[in-house]
């Protein structure tokens, strides 16, 4: 008989049992409960060992339920068949129900006292309270105290309890450990939502003593991250969870959007082109100097050899942005792809005219031609992002703002261009963080589709090397990688292995069958395979076992809802697009003024002038645009061609 609890004291929900075959150990124990119980896989429980004398309760052990068993006193299934005389319907007619047991296995989260480490006492088992959850997960070490560093990650929910679970900022954002990896099947909006929620949580709870923090998010598919500044729909349960977690349910206050142009060079290549929103999107355009340092990203390693590498280095070191004598009497100042093309042409012409040899400054002409072909091709393949000519428009290096999300939308960019954007952006972040002049002390870089960028197999790529570098060394700099993927098993081991915190959403059963998940019990795997939206399994350095948490929907507009509410605008004609961009910079500008200015002008000239205005942000944008555009050059009149009389006047006679 279950003894009623004493008033004021919680009733035990089970008791630890141990047999020779299933003993209690310092890391695992078994307990039984009533058949009808509120706990399940993932529940946190507390075991109180019997105390000695009047010294109160003895050893206290916290555990998380990792497996469950039910069985009856049936000796063999055959006996059930015999009793029912072979008729399954009759089995249900038995007047008595067999004795059953609910036996649970729990993994130890924490023991108090921690030393000496001993087997779990055979005591009563209780549902963990809020305070117990904090103790069990060792959150007491960093959620309270003079400099708390807890970052809410969600609510632990079991047995009617909702207890906030915190990550330690020192272990999420460095310097102790860092990086976060999230896995889960696609299409459930869990991975992106979790990161959006967690960023909001970080922005609100990042400890003041750790300085300023920003996030750089690469939007690599659809409109996922295009509406982070717009409020999304929340229900009462979400609001209650936000309140419980101490997070304000509101969209991000400061979001900066960047997107390259489309091939036309004036329409932005993003889904955030609704007239009400497109004004916030800054163009992302890079020129030769931005690209050349990362030429390795764009050039296929297989066909670029050491000689080509050396020539590219020569161009970077000796030619770019310098007065350079080509050796044939010409002087070049290479700043753009067009300038570089001019240099190449001069070299080829010079070698051909001089007839000297096939070598130019120790570089063979074949190597020069190869590099020229590859580089010339870049501006074609990444048109819109890489400009042939003209200045660049870039992220605000050195001026990053606290609690600001920088979204770089490369969803519709050629994969090569995505690699370039990622490589350059991360390199610049690292460069500035090393110099401590980025504007913030820590940056979270969010990369989705890690399967694609850091696969476990396949050729070594620049991007993968870069991700490895962040994973292994970023925490010292404050460069933190938040990465998401569908199949964790297919991501480079060192990238996922260096993630201090790991989140799992609903997982694919095949993925769970891979060796990386062997540490999980079958029951936990089943739970992972059926995890509802909004629930995650969390691994964190302070938690000795994975914990399940529920997080509220992010307070931002989901990508697909955003596209419905703010449908992307159709591409504007060239003239209209130029007008809109100038008008955004200076509201006094009238469309007709711009149209008159650019009528019959070469689009490249217009684009160059527009980029200059964007970069300079003058008070009088139209005047500056006019000056950059230069004077209209009247087309020269072609001299009239004189008719050349036929050598033999046509006679009347045909022969």
């Amino acid at each position, binding site marked *: *008989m279950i003894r009623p609890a004493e008033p004021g004291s919680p009733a035990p929900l089970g008791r630890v049992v141990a047999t020779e075959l299933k003993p209690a150990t310092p890391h695992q124990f078994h307990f039984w409960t009533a058949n009808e119980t509120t706990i399940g896989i993932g529940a946190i429980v507390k075991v109180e060992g019997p105390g000695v004398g009047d010294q109160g309760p003895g050893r206290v052990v916290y555990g998380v339920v990792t497996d469950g068993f039910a069985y009856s*006193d*049936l*000796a*063999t299934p055959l*006996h*059930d068949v*015999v*009793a*029912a005389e072979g008729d399954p319907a*009759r*089995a249900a*007619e*038995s*007047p*008595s*129900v*067999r*004795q059953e047991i609910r036996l649970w296995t729990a993994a130890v989260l924490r023991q108090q006292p921690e030393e000496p480490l001993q087997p779990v006492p055979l005591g009563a088992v209780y549902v963990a309270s809020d305070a117990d959850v904090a103790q069990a997960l060792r959150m007491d070490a960093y959620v309270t105290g003079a400099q708390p560093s807890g970052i809410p990650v969600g609510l632990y929910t079991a047995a009617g309890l909702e207890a906030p679970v915190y990550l330690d900022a020192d272990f999420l954002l460095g310097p102790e450990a860092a990086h976060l990896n999230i896995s889960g099947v696609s299409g459930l909006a869990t991975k992106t939502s979790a990161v959006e929620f967690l960023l909001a949580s970080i922005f609100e709870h990042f400890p003041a003593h750790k300085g300023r923090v920003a996030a750089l998010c690469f939007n690599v598919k659809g409109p996922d991250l295009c509406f982070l500044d717009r409020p999304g729909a929340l229900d009462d349960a979400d609001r209650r969870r936000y309140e419980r977690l101490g997070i304000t349910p509101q969209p991000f206050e400061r979001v900066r959007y960047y997107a390259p142009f489309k091939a036309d060079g004036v329409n932005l290549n993003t889904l955030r082109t609704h007239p009400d929103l497109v004004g916030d999107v800054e163009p992302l355009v890079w020129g030769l100097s931005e690209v050349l340092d990362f030429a390795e990203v764009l050039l296929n390693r297989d066909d670029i050899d050491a000689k080509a590498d050396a020539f590219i280095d020569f161009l970077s070191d000796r030619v770019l942005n310098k007065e350079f004598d080509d050796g044939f009497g010409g002087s070049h100042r290479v700043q753009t792809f067009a300038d570089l093309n001019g240099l190449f042409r001069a070299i080829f012409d010079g070698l051909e005219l001089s007839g000297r040899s096939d070598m130019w400054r120790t570089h063979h002409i074949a190597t020069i031609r190869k590099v020229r072909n590859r580089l010339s091709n870049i501006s074609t393949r990444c048109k819109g992002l890489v400009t042939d000519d003209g200045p660049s428009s870039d992220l605000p290096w050195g001026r990053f703002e606290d609690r600001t999300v920088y979204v770089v939308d490369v969803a519709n960019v050629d994969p090569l261009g995505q690699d370039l954007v990622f490589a350059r952006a991360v390199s610049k972040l690292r460069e500035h963080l090393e110099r401590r002049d980025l504007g913030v002390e820590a940056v979270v870089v969010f990369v989705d589709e890690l399967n694609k960028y850091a696969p476990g197999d396949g050729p070594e790529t620049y991007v993968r090397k870069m991700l490895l570098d962040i994973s292994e060394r970023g925490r010292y700099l404050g460069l933190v990688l938040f990465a998401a993927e569908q199949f964790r098993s297919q991501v480079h081991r060192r990238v996922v292995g260096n993630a201090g915190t790991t989140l799992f959403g609903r997982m694919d059963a095949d993925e769970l069958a891979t060796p990386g998940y062997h540490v999980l019990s079958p029951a936990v795997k089943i739970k992972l395979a059926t995890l509802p939206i909004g629930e995650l399994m969390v691994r964190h350095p302070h938690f000795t076992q994975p914990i399940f948490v529920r997080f509220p929907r992010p307070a931002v507009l989901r990508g697909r809802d955003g596209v419905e509410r703010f449908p992307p605008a159709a591409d504007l004609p060239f003239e209209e697009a130029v007008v809109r961009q100038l008008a955004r910079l200076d509201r006094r500008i009238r469309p007709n003024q711009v149209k008159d200015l650019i009528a019959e002008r070469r689009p490249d000239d217009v684009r160059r002038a527009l980029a200059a205005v964007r970069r300079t942000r003058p008070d009088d944008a139209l005047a500056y645009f006019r000056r950059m555009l230069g004077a209209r050059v009247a087309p020269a009149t072609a001299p009239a061609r004189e008719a050349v009389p036929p050598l033999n006047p046509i006679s009347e006679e045909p022969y």
Partner: protein
Amino acid sequence: MPRSWVDAILAAGAVPASYVPDASAGRTDLEEFTGADGVEDVALRTYAVADTRPLAPGTVAFLDGIEQWRVVGYGGVTPIVRGYVAAAVRRRGPDRRLRTAAEASREVAITRLESLAEPLRRALAASGVDLLELAEEDVGQPGRAIQAARRELERARLAQERELGERCLAALGPDEWLVVDGVLSDSAALSAHPRALGVIKSHGAQYFEGPELERALTLPAGHRTSVFQPKRRGARRAIYSWYLRLWPWEGNDLLYGLVRVEAHADAVTVARASALSAWLLRERSPLSTPDARWDRLLYAIHDVETYLRSRTPRDVIAPPGSRLPRTGS
């Protein structure tokens, strides 16, 4: 910290022992012919009950008891037995689950005081344990003394069951039945109650001879005999009874699946003997395996036994290997 009475007698000079006799389980029964009077039929007949609509009481209480014992010491050659008896009533409601409604247990020391040395006697008296005295003629030979102790303990168990059963009758709901493992006729209250059933698995006592005995013991599965009234023996009360075959005996033995049912000696009992039998047939499921007596042991009774065994103090039963010689360490 108070010591157990076993520790006390060992300290008082008893030679320690740890001996569980082979026949410590089970119960003794009469092994004699007593005779019976026909109630339903003059001559014993058989009735098929498989197609009879069974009685289906919403709530049923099941009563059973256990006994555990072992020799814990010797005073000279006189054994000192530690006995434990317990009985419980487990009630089954509409959810078909069994829950304990009442239980009682008792620990006893069985020996002959006069045969023990004075310090042992004092130690036993001081310990406060219930003492069951063996008769003088039973303690001459240790083997006989042990058999006598077993009978004493069985009597103690029956008394415990009877007391608990009678107590339970008072709390029985208006439509609730009490099913007892064993005879009802030992108790005036139980045998007189209209909703008490005794289910007897052992068949030491025989009530028929000749063709009627053959008819009773070769009863087909799903059949019962006519209701009869066993002839009174000693203090036993008037009761109605019949045999019921739960499982086919062919291929096993005559008593396989055979139970004898006891119920209130009343015309109503005769009228619903088939319905009661059909109900007990349903109680075959679930099987009470792995108990060796599963062919006659109702699952609910088995459940009461299991419950009682799980509640038995662990030191009553000698742990395996405890008879190995003690090592020096």
